């Protein structure tokens, strides 16, 4: 972690404040005015637009192996993804991914 203590707290406080303002926005300030449908549409895709792009490099070039692709971690990612798609359950995806990671790390030594 190259962030200083002050920078870390700045992230926490500003992220907390920003997130609160987003949660408060319509309920507190804007009221019952309808949002433009275009904005609603963009908002619907924010998590699915950010998280996959964030995770892809972590899977392909894991920091723990110095950025070299790693079979065990790749298999674990595939298992978590497949189980998540099939069961629609976050918890099973997490458990399946962790199970595959440990099985593969053990089997591949």
């Amino acid at each position, binding site marked *: 972690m*190259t*962030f200083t203590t002050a*920078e*870390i*707290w700045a*992230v*926490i406080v500003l*992220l907390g*404040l*920003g*997130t*609160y303002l*987003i*949660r408060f*926005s*319509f*309920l*507190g300030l*804007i*009221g*019952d005015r309808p949002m433009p449908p*275009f904005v*609603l*549409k*963009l*908002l*619907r*895709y*924010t*998590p*699915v*637009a*950010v*998280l*996959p*792009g*964030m*995770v*892809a*490099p*972590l899977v392909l070039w894991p920091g*723990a192996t110095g950025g070299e692709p790693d079979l065990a*971690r790749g298999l674990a*990612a595939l298992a978590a*993804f*497949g*189980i*998540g*798609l099939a*069961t629609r*359950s*976050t*918890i099973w*995806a*997490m458990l399946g*991914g*962790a199970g595959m*990671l*440990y099985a593969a*790390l053990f089997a591949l030594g």
Partner: protein
Amino acid sequence: MTGSTPKSAYRRGLRDGAPFLIVLVPFALLFGVVATEAGLTPGQTMGFNVLVIAGAAQFTAVSLMQEGAPLFVVLSTALAVNLRMAMYSAALVPHLGAAPLWQRAVVAYMNVDQTYACSVVEYERRPDMTLAEKLAFFFGLATLILPFWIGFAWVGIYAAAAIPPAFALDFAMPIAFIAIIAPSLKSLAHVAAALTSVVAALLLAWLPSGLGLLLAAGCAMAVGAAVETVTERRA
């Protein structure tokens, strides 16, 4: 509903919120562990869980901080993950918009994925609920969900020290992200947005830390919205 009161609505909220703990508890634990492994102090980790209360954004911020991304990039990417909550805020307006400002301010603090999803379903199922009942139901949900989110992160902080390196905790965060994403790919538009995000983020990975992701996210949102528009027109 015969005999429905704010008290019974509160109890229903407690009961309906309880199943969410099965997913929430491991996530809170994991955040405690991952943030501690990344070098955050217990106070900082708890600061995230009390002030931000948004798992995906918290993991995003910690991951980018670890990569040494600039402050501005950490904040804008993590806030982008939370933009969906503007939708939650808007969804509650027809139901709770008439409450006094201070109550709406408290509801906003507690307006997280689980309380939003669960309360909107309940309000639509029982349109005859009074404002007091609706608020009581919402606070019933939050009564379990918030303390568990905060408490189990604290447990995770102390569990981190006990977990040996052989457990490859470096990969806990990617698995957590994938476990959030995969079940949410519920339409062609979601799949298109996710694919765009992955491809663009990998192509733009050469950009200074984190900026590529921000650009990729912008493209992916636009693609998701565009695909939704096209599929609607065809339907």
